[in-house]
């Protein structure tokens, strides 16, 4: 019987979390846009073309939030915070580059599951181009528990 490679298993778990976090982030950016489209007819009654302006403004705001949330939210967008992962530069010391975040987000948007199932290779490509990596966040409650268990009585 083959032994389970623990490092690979952990990596697979992170990639699964990363994939889900991308979808959560896209959903967060998408919902206000959906609301603006569905309320367009009502908003248009306030003034001609007002609905279109609102849709445009909401799309710009949600896009801005989607593309920059990793940068302004301490290396973790809302989706990444939910799944306890974060983006770091490859050397782990430098501050995350704004350009890396933008390229990362654009490349995330180009992943097409119907064309290519292999999300792992897509992740590797993103990591290579942006010199960043996805790591699991150390949860505060876990760290605190470890500290408590380490206390010598």
């Amino acid at each position, binding site marked *: 019987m083959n032994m389970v490679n623990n490092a690979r298993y952990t990596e697979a778990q992170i990639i699964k979390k990363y994939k889900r976090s*991308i*979808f959560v982030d*896209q*959903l967060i*950016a*998408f919902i206000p*846009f*959906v609301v603006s*489209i*569905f309320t*367009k*007819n009502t908003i248009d009654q306030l003034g001609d073309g007002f609905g*279109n302006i609102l*849709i*445009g403004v909401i*799309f710009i705001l*949600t896009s801005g939030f*989607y593309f920059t949330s990793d940068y302004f939210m301490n290396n973790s967008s809302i989706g990444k915070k939910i799944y306890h992962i974060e983006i770091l530069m490859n050397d782990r010391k430098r501050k995350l580059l704004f350009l890396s975040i933008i390229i990362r987000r*654009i490349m*995330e*948007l*180009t*992943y*097409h*599951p*119907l*064309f*290519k*199932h*292999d999300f792992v290779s897509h992740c590797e490509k993103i990591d290579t181009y942006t010199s960043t990596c996805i790591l699991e966040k150390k949860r505060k409650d876990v760290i605190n528990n470890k500290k408590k268990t380490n206390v010598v009585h």
Partner: protein
Amino acid sequence: MGLQNRKILTISKHTFCANNPIVYYDPDGDLFLPLIILISAMVSVLLMATAPDENNAEENASVSGSASPDPLTFGFDIFGVGYSFTMEQPGVTCDFVNGCQEFTQTGGQFGPLGINNATYEDGSNTKTISFLVFYISIDNNDFDDFSSWGAGLSFSISSGIPSYGSGTASFDVDFLGLIRDQYPQGE
């Protein structure tokens, strides 16, 4: 050796793919999309052929296209994935029953999630939410009327650069409408 006691089927590495790993081998999933297109085409033709003539089931398959240098459109999306925004883009949609009709569309795509609001020249409008190639639509915000709902597959490509121009092309099949049209109207 334990191998000598085993049946030949359990030894063969390619039993799972009918011993034909060349034909039945798709590690990257590249055949998935052509398979969806093929199956949806076969099923839609079958449903159109079996529906009563008076229901005009052929109207559930439509081809749409739009191209214009004027509207504010940017980004790209292909088969329901990409990043794009479309504002009041004029276009034409055609089906076998109603012929062609002009429309303007406003919408956008965030990765696999898309939304579109199309307003037709007769004043009606259709709002569509999509995930990849799958979509749900509603006509004139009439949520209570089951006949105004649609759901099916949409194979589309669009791209645009602001102030340069934009274009979209799509082929849509409304499977919910096709299933609804299997039954005589009024039931």
